[in-house]
């Protein structure tokens, strides 16, 4: 793979992370006065317990290096980030923020990967099929339904699903990931339990996101359908299935993947709110509780983490893309 391409992508990734870090640095300092005192002030305002506040203040002064000039503070901050030192949680003092996030992260990653993969593959396939001649007309009724669903944000769907399937019809649990009181060992029943609890959150994301992918792929396919290489493929007497997969879909999917990279940010944003609604113990729910507890370091840590994750995911996608589109490595020359 072209080295220049790789470098460009890495630089973009670092740029995104750096911007997020800087935003996290600047915002608390926008409020006039001492940010730590301001933080603590607000915490007590919101009634959060500030046990051991003297310790907290001390550790923060050290960490923030508040007596030092801003640039030094900034550099120290960036250095800490590079070590994945996100500070100590205010509401769970003195547990490091990183530890807390790590506990919640696997849930979010699991939910997101499954939901996104499902929505993307189903949506893309549907979108492609809808444009293909030999697809039965009955399938086209899906189009308006999924389009309407695509307009609705994940969290509204979550509310409705929560009400309908969990509350009203008791098909699924109302929240969490395991039944309260069940043992935490890894067993088949536990896995099934988790899966059962994850259905509604995943469904909230998938039902809405599918429409978007479907519409996008449909648009791409329309562009590909008129292409000369499709006509020639037909003239060659190739089987319809091969033409669909290797000639049409394979070409139309390229911009879809770029689209996936771009929409990762909003998918994550949506997933956060879905977790909140279902009390799903991922990073999103953690954020919600952090907000309620005015735990600013945790809030900042989660934000940074979210941006980092999205950045990494996009980087991976960017690296995978040239494998699918042979033209890319050459264009960067």
């Amino acid at each position, binding site marked *: 793979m072209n080295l220049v391409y790789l470098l460009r992508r890495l630089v973009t990734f670092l740029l995104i992370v750096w911007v997020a870090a800087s935003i996290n640095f600047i915002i608390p300092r926008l409020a006039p006065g001492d940010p730590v005192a301001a933080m603590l002030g607000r915490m007590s305002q919101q009634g959060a317990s500030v046990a051991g506040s003297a310790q907290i203040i001390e550790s923060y002064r050290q960490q923030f290096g508040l007596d030092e000039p801003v640039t030094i503070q900034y550099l120290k901050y960036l250095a800490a980030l590079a070590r994945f030192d996100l500070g100590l949680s205010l509401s769970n003092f003195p547990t490091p923020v990183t530890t807390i996030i790590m506990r919640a992260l696997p849930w979010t990653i699991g939910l997101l990967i499954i939901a996104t993969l499902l929505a993307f593959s189903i949506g893309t396939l549907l979108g492609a099929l809808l444009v293909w001649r030999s697809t039965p007309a009955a399938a086209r009724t899906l189009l308006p339904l999924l389009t309407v669903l695509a307009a609705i944000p994940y969290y509204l769907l979550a509310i409705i699903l929560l009400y309908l399937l969990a509350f009203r019809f008791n098909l699924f649990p109302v929240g969490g990931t395991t039944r309260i009181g069940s043992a935490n060992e890894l067993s088949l029943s536990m896995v099934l339990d988790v899966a059962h609890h994850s259905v509604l959150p995943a469904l909230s994301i998938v039902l809405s996101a599918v429409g978007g992918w479907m519409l996008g792929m449909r648009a791409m396919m329309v562009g590909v359908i008129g292409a000369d290489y499709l006509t020639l493929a037909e*003239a*060659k007497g*190739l089987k319809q299935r091969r033409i669909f997969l290797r000639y049409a879909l*394979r*070409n139309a999917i390229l911009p879809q993947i770029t689209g996936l990279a771009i929409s990762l940010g909003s998918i994550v944003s949506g997933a956060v709110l879905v977790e909140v609604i279902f009390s799903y113990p991922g990073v999103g729910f953690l954020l919600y509780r952090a907000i309620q507890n005015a735990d600013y370091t945790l809030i900042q840590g989660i934000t940074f983490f979210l941006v980092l994750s999205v950045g990494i995911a996009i980087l991976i996608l960017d690296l995978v893309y040239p494998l699918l589109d042979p033209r890319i490595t*050459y264009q960067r020359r």
Partner: protein
Amino acid sequence: MAVRGVSFYVRAGETFGLVGESGSGKTTTDMAILRLIRPPARVEGGEIILGDTDLQRCSEEELRSLRWNRISLIPQGAMNSLNPVMRVKDQIGDAILTHEGRLPGKVLRERIIDLLHTVGLSPDVYNLYPHELSGGMKQRVCIAMAIALRPQLIIADEPTSALDVVVQRLVAETLKDVQKRLNAGLILIGHDMGLQAQMADRIGVMYKGQFVEVGPVRAIFKNPVHPYTRLLISSIPSIKQKHQPPPAAAWEEIQQAGPQDEPGMQEVEPEHFVALSESIALGSAG
């Protein structure tokens, strides 16, 4: 572009040149032969007889299996006719595999490289992607693809139009060579009269969706009857004579001469047919 009353034949080993300007119906005709006409256009009747098979009466599946096997296409604009995300070997290979079933890897590879050799391409091309090839090379890959199954009939739609002059000649010669080897019929579509003069045995001139003149190439060039044919021939640059733009009167004549409601051709010489109307007298051949 609607095509009406088009009727012609091509013998094995013979090249039939389909000539006319853009929009005259040439591509529509070849698409119709391949039965690739898509809605909203449709074929309203007639027969398309290949060997002993009437293509009009074939089902989709029958058509699919005889396509490329017995009749293949070298498309206009090879630039866009190759799948950008497939290697050359796979694009040539998939036609072979589809119609002949699975082949041992080595055998397939040998065959493809052989085909490439026939069109004058080095074995390196085997693994390349289309965007790594020049225009001429892409066109020759298309020719290699088209002959892979030794078809009876090859339709070449403007095979040289997007190429520069030197490459044009190379491609034209390759095509001719290939046709001879297979003893296949070749329908050569184009508006380059010079190329037609070199390659075609017989020519059909189309104007606005109908044939206006059909005949052996020598006869047509020596004795063009229809005003449109004459116009086409006169547009070939000649070293001897300075090129004169056709007078407005020539277009008038052409307008009056066709298209006909009832296309009927008259034989003015052996094998040389012209669609005549009252305004063209038999004696106005020039």
